[in-house]
């Protein structure tokens, strides 16, 4: 199974990583600062003692006064716990040493081998179980005659060490706790912060076909999620719209099918209710076949529209000379138009890349619609116009009753009829214009209708480039 990335987990880990970095750095800095502070303190102490030793030795002007050095030093250094001082004359002769300061002699011995600076850098070393920090220094006499003494001062820093160890331990325990705590707080914050997302999910969960009207509350969504919420609401809107159209369509369909089926049933029932002559039976079958025809055609049209809705109509492209097509269609409708006392004419030329059969069907539907609605003596004009880069425009214009604007908008809806009462005598099921629209749209074009006073004009634009 794939491990799904959780934003909460991600945020928590980020919090932990950030706080860990900061706290560890802080801990290290604090540790070093404390240690530096101790070192400074130690060195101040050591230097002050060195100063005392230097003064004492510098006061010696005659060899006889040399014997007084231990006495002076002893007085000055008494009572300083943990402080070891050793003063050596040349040849490692001990002039003075505090108790237990023997180890200093060894140190001086190693130091004196090194290049003879006057004063060594502060040293840290271990002796036995204890740790010391110290400095060695050569101190000349006031006389300047004899070789200088070497003075070593060391401070027992074991207690500092121990303090540092326990301090560091405490510090790191705190750091660890702090990291855990920020992790937990981070997790908590992330969860709280992501609560709006869960709210969205909650709303989404509640949405079903019957409750497509629900929307995410726009005001209560944080700014960062506003876009998401808006897109989500838009999507819901589109879904609701298609769903509504689909269910309208289904109920229209059911209604449209009900009429012929009910005709068929009634007719057949009545026919069978008593014996009839062969002529009568034949009559009924004829009538039935007309209904069946209508049903079959409706099913075929519905299928076409259903496919168009699902983008399954893929026009087979070829170059079509629209003038020829329109003329052939006019030829097809000629007899019918003539019968109705209507003239049909074409002006203009143009060509287009498209599916010949479909384009024919689209224009045919417009023509048949126009012929149906043109009063006797009227003239239908078909205009083909090449608009260059704007493609081709095909306009079918017919005189006729003005169509109110509220109907105009819905003319391309399935099963829509301007006059609800006008039944289907010699008229299609009300799918013709819807099919034309689907075909035009499958070709990437657009269709529109306008009505002015007593003229109705359908316009198809196709083949726009760019």
């Amino acid at each position, binding site marked *: 199974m794939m491990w799904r990335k959780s934003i909460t987990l991600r945020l928590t880990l980020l919090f932990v990583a950030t706080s860990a970095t900061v706290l560890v750095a802080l801990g290290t800095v604090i540790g070093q600062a404390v240690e530096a502070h101790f070192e400074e303190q130690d060195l101040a102490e050591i230097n002050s003692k060195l100063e005392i030793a230097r003064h004492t030795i510098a006061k010696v002007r005659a060899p006889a006064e040399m014997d007084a050095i231990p006495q002076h030093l002893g007085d000055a250094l008494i009572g300083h716990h943990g402080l070891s001082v050793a003063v050596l004359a040349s040849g490692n002769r001990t002039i003075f040493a505090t108790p237990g300061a023997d180890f200093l002699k060894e140190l001086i011995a190693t130091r004196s081998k090194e290049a003879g600076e006057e004063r060594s850098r502060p040293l840290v070393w271990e002796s036995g179980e204890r740790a010391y920090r110290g400095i060695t220094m050569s101190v000349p006499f006031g006389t300047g005659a004899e070789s200088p003494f070497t003075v070593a001062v060391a401070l027992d820093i074991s207690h500092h060490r121990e303090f540092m160890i326990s301090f560091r331990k405490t510090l790191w325990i705190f750091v660890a706790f702090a990291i855990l705590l920020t992790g937990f707080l981070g997790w908590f914050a992330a969860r709280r912060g992501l609560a709006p997302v869960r709210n969205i999910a909650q709303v989404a969960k509640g949405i079903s076909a019957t409750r497509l009207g629900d929307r995410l509350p726009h005001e209560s969504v944080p700014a960062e999620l506003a876009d998401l919420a808006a897109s989500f609401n838009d999507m819901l809107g589109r879904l609701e719209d298609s769903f509504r159209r689909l269910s309208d369509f289904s109920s229209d369909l059911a209604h449209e099918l009900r009429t012929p089926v009910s005709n068929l049933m009634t007719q057949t029932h009545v026919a069978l209710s008593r014996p009839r002559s062969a002529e009568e039976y034949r009559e009924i079958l004829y009538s039935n076949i007309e209904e069946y025809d209508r049903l079959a055609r409706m099913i075929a049209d519905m299928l076409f529209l259903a496919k168009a809705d699902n983008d399954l109509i893929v026009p087979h492209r070829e170059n079509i000379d629209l003038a020829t097509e329109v003329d052939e269609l006019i030829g*097809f409708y000629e007899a019918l138009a003539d019968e109705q006392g209507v003239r049909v004419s074409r002006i203009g030329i143009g060509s287009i890349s498209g599916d010949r059969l479909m384009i024919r069907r689209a224009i*045919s539907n417009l023509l048949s619609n126009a012929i149906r609605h043109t009063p006797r003596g009227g003239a239908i004009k078909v205009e083909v116009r090449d608009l260059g880069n704007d493609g081709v425009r095909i306009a079918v214009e017919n005189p006729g009753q003005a169509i109110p604007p509220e109907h105009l908008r819905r003319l391309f809806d399935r099963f829509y009829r301007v006059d609800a009462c006008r039944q289907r005598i010699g008229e299609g099921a009300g799918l013709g214009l819807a099919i034309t629209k689907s075909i035009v749209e499958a070709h990437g074009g657009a269709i529109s209708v306008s009505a002015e006073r007593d003229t109705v004009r359908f316009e198809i634009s196709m083949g726009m480039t760019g």
Partner: protein
Amino acid sequence: MKILIIEDETKTGNYLKQGLTEAGFVADIARDGMDGAHLALTEAYDLVVLDVMLPGMDGWRVLQEIRRAGRDLPVLFLTARDHVDDRVKGLELGADDYLVKPFAFSELLARVRTLLRRGKTTEADVLRAADLELDLRRRRVTRSGKRIDLTAKEFALLELLLRRQGEVLPRSLIASQVWDMNFDSDTNVIEVAVRRLRSKVDDEFEPKLIKTVRGMGYVLETQESP
């Protein structure tokens, strides 16, 4: 003429058989693909009406079997799914024509006759029915020796009716053959066109030749139908 119907739907199969038999063909029926392919390859048929959706071996396989065996008898396939893919597939596999269910029986009959006639058209210069004559070469129509003026489309329509005398031609077939309108145009264009032709060819003469078969189409025949 022997026709094999391969169709698993009982009712459809039976009606196809009855209809074709009554139209003067000998019709056999196979209820599944295996039987169908077997019959088509062992018996001598002039045409196969093949349903695509069959249990066991589907229509495409049957069609492939027939073509693989090198038999070029015409195959008309029936499909309930009006998918372009289906049509293309069928025609690519070597079918000769197709019909989408539901279809009018008269349409099927007309297609069957077209397929059977294919390649056997007698190139007569003059088509006749009773005292009606249509001269293809001079593009002239006479009845009882009287010249009749027809428009180009009326001429084409009459030619079609004459060539297929005695056959009921559905409106969709007429629209397709005369005007090249290969879609259902739900207007009564054909009705008007036939009425006009009739007024020129039949109105002043006896017997009436062009007849309307209600709900099915038009037929040109010389004797009264029983």
